[in-house]
């Protein structure tokens, strides 16, 4: 039984700190488990639906289980003209999943994102928040095999 209370303890004295707490929980579990949302609600004196509503508002937070590596491909206009669609197709083909899915072995989740602020090197993907710049479809197998 994971001890969510321990993580929450570091943030409960921080006014409005539930988003910080969610970041910490997600760092540990790659998503925010349902029971953790309940515990967070109690720690920050909110109702559970309110806490759930906070977690689901922000695209960087997930309430669904995800893979070990979370790959986010930017689809904003600067990446779009730099060939983001082709990069996304290559990711889907290589991983054998569609955007929004996780590989059966639980290693990779593929998500779309809007701009991540690295537009000096479009197209951009991030893997567990680390940006990869000037990505082309041809580089996808190399980038992914580097994670094995």
């Amino acid at each position: 039984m994971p001890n969510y209370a321990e993580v929450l303890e570091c943030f409960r004295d921080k006014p409005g700190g539930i988003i910080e707490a969610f970041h910490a929980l997600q760092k540990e579990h790659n998503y925010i488990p349902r029971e953790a949302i309940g515990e967070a609600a109690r720690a920050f004196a909110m109702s559970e639906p309110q806490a759930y509503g906070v977690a689901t508002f922000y695209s960087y937070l997930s309430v669904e289980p995800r893979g070990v590596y979370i790959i986010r491909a930017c689809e904003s206009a600067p990446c779009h003209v730099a060939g983001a669609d082709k990069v996304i197709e290559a990711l889907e083909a290589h991983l054998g999943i569609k955007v929004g899915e996780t590989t059966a072995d639980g290693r990779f989740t593929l998500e779309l994102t809007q701009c991540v602020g690295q537009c000096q090197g479009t197209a951009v993907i991030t893997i567990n928040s680390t940006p990869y710049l000037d990505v082309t479809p041809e580089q996808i197998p190399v980038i992914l095999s580097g994670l094995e």
Partner: protein
Amino acid sequence: MIEQLHIAFRNADKIDPKSIGDYIGAGGYTALEKARSLAPKELADEVKKANLRGRGGAGFNAGLKWGFVPADAETTYVVCNLDEGEPGTYKDRLVVEKDPHSLLEGMAICAWAVRSRQGYIYCRGEYPYIVDHLNGAIAQAEARGVLGDFKVEVRMGAGAYVCGEESALIESIEGHRGLPRYKPPFPGANGVWGRPTVVHNVETLVALPEVVSKGADWYAAIGASNYPGTKVLTLTGDVVNRQAFEVPTDVTLRQVIFELGGGVRGGRKFKAVQVGGTSGGFIPESYLDTPIDFDSMRLLGSFLGLGTGAVFVLDETRDMVDVATRVAKFFEHESCGKCTPCREGTYRMYEIMKKINRGDGTDEDLDRLESIGKVMLRASLCGSGQASPSPILTAIRYFRSEFDHKLKALV
């Protein structure tokens, strides 16, 4: 050849950003001392006179903003908006990466003017390493005691574009869904936890030490008189030099793209530039001799004027309808859903743009985009909804033939 002029980047690559000693050695924290020798009102008047206007998107006079904070308020907050989520923008990240103490000093100067003892830096969730970097700088500043009784805390956003809007950002600091508030009251009267709050973009805050140490007249004389100073521009898209530049605000778009930017990639011809981020207007070649200052950009149809300073260049091969459709998708995704004009408007605009982009659109669809856009501009609750029609409406206004070309052939 136009010259860059560095205010936000004054210490960039000259000092070790991880060393407060380097920053102090370069004259850092002396402006804060000078500011604290002035009465808060004197300081605010000086900044008002410098006509330092917000660098994040709305272009509001910083000193004037401070004037909204009641002088007798017991608790006030200074908030730094480091939530840059506007596609094509990465200036605030660069400024903080290269010189975090300029930001802390700027915040402390602002804090003196509005008698605040607590600051927050709201950093976007996509920059976790910047959060660590800032926490390191704050720890050094506290160890040296340079900030006095002014405390700064970094809060992390979590991927919501709307949180760049100041009242949504405040909601997020409070641990809520990032929904913009009804205004008035404005943050200056009622901000974080109901207390008077001043929210500034990174680039505005880092200019403050320079305004204080060199004086309002010095600053007001740089660049365009209606929007003085410098602006950090981030060049993206089909331009040779995809990088950041800091220039006086009276340079023209043509100078930015063809001198600093090195022109269009691959020897192709220029088609359009979108200035100010994805909520900015698309501008054709015929307007490239316009200066980049806020008001000039606004006259070209971009609601947020110069906006964030993102400069997104498109070459002759780009399909304006396709690019505008992608922009429409962005706003449909990022609308927070609180107000109907934006929630429904962004949805319908994206729906219609998809239809036109696949060749099924009609003249009536273009009329619908115009009328939806007008409603959104006037009736949306916050700047995000108000600005989001600009790229689509300017694309129609300046590149109408590309839209006409894609419309369904009527039998």
